[in-house]
């Protein structure tokens, strides 16, 4: 059973005197239970629209979506999920504690369990000290933390987090990343929508990249970004003679200051490189594969798609 299953989902927004906006164009995806699923894309790619359709805040034009094998619009399904909206507006007249109490009640949590959960989640997001302060006096980061606590209040199995670290400082971001990892360990499924690619890179098991309402890439981060057979080899001793021998068989090689940067056509060629260096009595200190950052990959993919 998938946590989320989406099949050929389309969403068109009708506009008066203008062409319809086709926000989602045949989106299909599956999210396994217990994984952190990242969704990336530039502004207007359709990420938030997809989340809002899944939460049945808006209705799809066509296609189907299910959550835990039940139609996504089923009210019962919503007891198993929670949502941190990107542009959330918590009632400004409530204190942080009252926000959690209110949304806890609406989620069906009550009594001692709710009180315990409020204490626990406030502690977890570092807001215990400000629990009696009204939301209108909170900074953006504090509101975001309360928002995150609100998603944890009903012990949901599936969390939709739309820009969870928006407005939060570097230290807070690290705490939230750790929290997300902890939630994964507890078996929760997380559907993460974030602009911060480094964040996604560190926590997500699977990602999809969306552009103009379509999924243009999908897979694990490793499978998407580690595409080049490029390595950095730190050596000791003069490798000039060995480099000359290697040059004839590899795609690209550069040697400066005891460091060899090499690009191979096939990974198997690495054995040849190591053998040649050792035959020339060069000590190998380290071999590190070059890895494209997710950000570079993202910019590259979006650039190509827009072109």
């Amino acid at each position: 059973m998938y946590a989320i299953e989406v099949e050929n989902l389309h969403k068109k927004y009708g506009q008066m005197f203008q062409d319809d906006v086709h926000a989602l164009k045949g989106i299909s995806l599956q999210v396994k239970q217990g994984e952190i699923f990242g969704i990336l894309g530039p502004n207007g790619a359709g990420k938030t629209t997809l989340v809002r359709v899944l939460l049945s805040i808006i209705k799809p034009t066509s296609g189907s979506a299910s959550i835990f094998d039940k139609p996504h619009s089923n009210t019962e399904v919503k007891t198993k999920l929670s949502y941190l909206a990107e542009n959330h507006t918590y009632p400004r007249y409530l204190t942080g504690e009252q926000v959690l109490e209110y949304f806890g009640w609406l989620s069906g949590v009550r009594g001692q369990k709710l009180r315990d959960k409020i204490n626990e989640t406030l502690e977890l997001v570092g807001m215990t000290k400000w629990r009696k302060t009204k939301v209108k006096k909170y900074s953006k980061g504090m509101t975001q933390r309360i928002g995150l606590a609100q998603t944890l209040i009903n012990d949901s199995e599936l969390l939709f987090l739309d820009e969870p670290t928006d407005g939060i400082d570097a230290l807070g971001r690290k705490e939230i990343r750790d929290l997300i990892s902890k939630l994964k360990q507890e078996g929760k499924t997380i559907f993460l929508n974030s602009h911060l690619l480094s964040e996604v890179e560190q926590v997500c098991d699977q990602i999809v990249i969306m552009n103009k309402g379509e999924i243009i890439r999908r897979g694990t981060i490793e499978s998407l970004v580690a595409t080049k057979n490029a390595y950095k080899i730190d050596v000791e001793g003069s490798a000039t003679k060995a480099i000359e021998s290697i040059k004839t068989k590899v795609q690209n090689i550069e040697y400066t200051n005891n460091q060899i940067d090499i690009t191979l056509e096939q990974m198997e060629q690495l054995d040849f490189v190591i053998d040649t260096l050792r035959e020339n009595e060069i000590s190998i200190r380290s071999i590190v594969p070059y890895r494209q950052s997710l950000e570079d990959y993202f910019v590259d993919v979006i650039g190509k798609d827009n072109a």
Partner: protein
Amino acid sequence: MKFFAIFIDTFREIRDKKMLITFGIITAIFACTYIFGLSTKPAGNGNIETTFFGDSETINAIEFVQKQMMFFSHVTTGIILFLFIITFAFVIANLLKPGTLDLHLSKPLWRPQLLLYKFLACVSGVLVLMLIMTATFWSILSWKAGVITLQPFIFTFMAAAIFAISFSVITFCCVLTRGAGAGISIYLVYAYLLQGVLQSRESIKAGIDSPLLANVLDSAYHILPKINECLTIATKMSSGKETNFYPLTSSLIFMGVTLIVSCIIFQRKDY
């Protein structure tokens, strides 16, 4: 539990809007006026002799309480209903704000359930506040007159019903426009202008000999809510007089239909 949550939240919101303080001040002014301005003494045969800021009269005690409660209700209901309509219009509009509505719709709540709970929370809020106000004033009068009559409370329930009828229009407009402005404007135009026109339709029909206009005015009168006439019914009921309930029942039907249509729109509309 979910209704309770929405009810408490609605109360917290109007408290934040300083409505409870305003309400408390109005109640306190009336209470103090009667505590310090009114003096009574028994006059036998169920009568009391009252002195109110220098004016003395001998009157049946129950009649006195009913008369004063009616005066109080007439003075306060118009002002308070107007204030409540404006305030609660913003309560509904705030629920429909993009960031707030998204959060609510992600909870295990059926959409019409959310709208109806909010509507009922607002109406219950008005009823509770008016009951507190009426009970305070009623306690003072009963204590001064030395009698207990519950008839004046009918007016409070009727006032809440009239608020609900008026508020259904506001709710409908908020669902359509996502803002309070249109609803308040339409309500004010209807309550203070159009309703008067419909009430005097007979004289208009007599002045302009047009069967089409006559039909339009009659249809509009029967379909639309009759707020002023409902207030008259409330007054008559509180005084124990017989009355025609048609304006009330037709207004309640209007409220029901308006709420059903609002729920259908709210269920189907993409926000």
